[in-house]
């Protein structure tokens, strides 16, 4: 209970503080007060832990502290609403994931335009998607699975963490390119989905590298494909989508976003911080522990990639029948 009181007093103090300083802001004095970084998932989840990892290495490279604030709810809309209503002054950022930044706008009614309202500042890490099957299933390679699925469309089931999950869209994109169709069995979260496949109740799994790993090590799952251009270090023998001729280079990225109207000078300063943080030893260790792949991608490179990504996600969402707006 002391903790709560302490937090209350602290936030009151902060509030008073910021009210005084808010009056005037000049880009060359940036940063002159603490910066807020939101995430769209609950405290303690991988997004929140990534936010905290950035905040914990930031003091080495940034003169002001970063305050992390998980804002879960509404498919990420609660957090985005918070960013959209903040001043475009470089003191509020959002650590975005594909689920709310690329997928939700095609599924939910959102009160903002992703391209016109938000701008990427830099990517710091990503999770890789892998497809695996139950050990006792007959398919040893991805080609065998494709062959079986061609014979019986929509008969083979796959498990995923939710109907709108990033991992599901990765698999649906792959199916589209391979010209097959599988039936989706959504679960509440990646771990229950992986357990259902490891127990042999559902044959195919689409998940992150780390969600599949414990079951692969115990011999209950066999990984068939990694959705990337390079092989995952956890599965050096598993071919990539690129090797097999599919264009499914889709990672579950962690990218910081800001209001679009934020002055470029300020965004440049924060991008510099993200670059240094992403290469920091401590940050790399924290991400590796989470099963994520740390690595910096610049705002410019990410923006180019993001446009393409949203184009194909829009197509796939419509095909799968998740879209609300026809």
């Amino acid at each position, binding site marked *: *209970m002391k903790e709560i009181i302490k937090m209350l007093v602290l936030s009151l103090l902060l509030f008073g503080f910021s009210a005084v300083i808010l009056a005037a802001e000049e880009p060359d004095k940036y940063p002159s007060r603490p910066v807020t970084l939101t995430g769209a998932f609950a405290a303690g989840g991988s997004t929140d832990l990534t936010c905290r990892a950035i905040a914990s290495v930031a003091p080495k490279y940034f003169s002001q502290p970063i305050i992390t604030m998980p804002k879960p709810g509404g498919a990420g809309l609660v957090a985005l609403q918070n960013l959209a209503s903040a001043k475009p002054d470089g003191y509020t950022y959002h650590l975005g994931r594909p689920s709310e930044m690329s997928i939700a706008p095609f599924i939910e009614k959102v009160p903002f335009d992703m391209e016109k309202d938000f701008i990427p500042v830099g990517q710091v890490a990503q999770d890789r998607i892998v497809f695996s099957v139950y050990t006792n299933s007959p398919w040893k390679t991805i080609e065998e699975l494709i062959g079986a699925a061609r014979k019986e469309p929509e008969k083979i089931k796959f498990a995923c963490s939710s109907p709108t999950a990033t991992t599901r869209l990765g698999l649906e994109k792959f199916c589209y390119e391979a010209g097959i169709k599988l039936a989706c069995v959504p679960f509440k979260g990646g771990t229950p989905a992986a357990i259902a496949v490891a127990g042999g109740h559902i044959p195919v799994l689409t998940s992150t590298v780390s969600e599949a790993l414990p079951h692969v090590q115990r011999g209950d799952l066999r990984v068939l494909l990694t959705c990337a251009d390079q092989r995952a270090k956890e599965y050096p023998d598993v071919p990539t989508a690129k090797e097999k001729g599919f264009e499914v280079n889709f990672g579950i990225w962690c990218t910081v976003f800001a209001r679009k109207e934020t002055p470029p000078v300020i965004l440049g300063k924060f991008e510099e911080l993200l670059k240094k943080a992403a290469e920091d030893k401590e940050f790399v260790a924290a991400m590796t522990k989470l099963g994520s792949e740390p690595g910096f991608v610049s705002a410019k490179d990410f923006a180019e990639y993001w446009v393409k990504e949203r184009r194909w996600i829009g197509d796939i969402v419509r095909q799968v029948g998740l879209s609300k707006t026809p």
Partner: protein
Amino acid sequence: MDFYSLIFQGFSIVFQPINLFLCFFGCLMGTLVGVLPGLGPTAAIALLLPTTFHFTPVSAIITLCGIYYGAMYGGSTTSILVNIPGEAASVVTTLDGYKMAQDGRAGPALGIAAFGSYIAGTLSIVGLMFLAPPLARAALAFGPPEYFSLMCLGLTILIYLASGSMIKALMMAALGLIIGCIGADMLTNVHRFTLGIPELMDGVGLIPLVMGLFGISEVLLNIEVQVKQEILKGKIKNLLPNLQEWKHSAKPILRGSLLGFFLGILPGAGPAISSFVSYAVEKRVSRHPGKFGQGAIEGVAGPESANNAATGGSFIPLFSLGIPSNSVMAILLGALMIHGVIPGPSLMQQNPDLFWGVVASMYVGNIMLLVLNLPLIGLWVKLLRVPYAILFPLILLFCLIGAYTASNKIVDVYIMIFFGLMGYLLRKYRYEAAPLILAFVLGPMLEDALRQSLIISEGSPMIFFTRPISGTILVFTILLLLSPMLPKIRERRQVLPLDKKN
């Protein structure tokens, strides 16, 4: 790793200074909420959950568990000394405990409650340690159809064991199922009953719901009744029960331990029901049932052991299958998820530190509680003298802060206030909130499992009967549903009702 090295590892985690401190802190808070009327363990755990966000998962769960079993110890103190149960599981202790205190035997009553709690608590941890791992290994055989059948069984037992009116329990469970429907549909993502509020897309939060139904409503209810803050005068002597008293209590403690442990595993039973059943059993097997209600030490020893044994048992379905068996476990399920740990079959494999650390912490915590509750009893008695005019506004304030800090959403505060008012009315008319909470948590799990199973079977409901585990559970469920029609069992059920006392 073998069994012994795992236990050893668990103890090495508990004996880290920070965890030792947090275990103590949890037990202390638990005793506190147990002693103070107006806040039970469920609301207290929900309230303190946000403060554990910065801990490691093991430390967080050690703290929260400490509150749970700590409350079972503390609850008996007020029952015996003031005739006010600190929380639901100690209601039955007032019957004989307070009588004993009036006869000047408050010391032995408190003593046997604490020792009985300690013995039963420790025995149930041994049970948890041996039963949970094999069950978790077997759990991979549980797919969606098996989970569906388990949920059906759980909801059936929940109604069957509910204290008070069965119709009212059914109504509360149905209401819980309906509230559980709010949010985005798990297959098609269509919004159900969200009223266009984005925060409701993920459903009603468990924490504001619990804090409203258990915390706010309890305070509102207590403001209404004029509670006499009269505490037994005079010094409490002879905390250590004598040989004669031990002789009378030994068997009730053992029976209470076994009974509580197995009832704890069942969904819906939990500590409160266990203590009632234990009291009924002791009265039945006793050679002098007339003494019950007149200060029989068996009537304190049995129930107080049973409610502590139930805490150990209730962890089994949570840690091995990811199914909460009572409302406290439902909150712990949420707490584990917040800390990135998914409760279920893979928990013991992926987070052995967590499971064994928590188990070891319970051994340590039970010893701490014995010390907290016997030599320091005077301190708790003093605490009972805090005027309610100060206590209740404080609890309300902490609930408001707690509901907000859990997720940084003001909507959750409104939800809590809404359910607080609703809970107040429900309890005034003797509707129990526990079936609502459990159905609220089990309902969505049931729906998911049903729909997943039907996708797997391509629409055929036969999948629930043709799979051996699922079929067995369902047949058992149906038998249980039909059993109240047999007159003999209907008679037996009438032993349980809570209302009997009033």
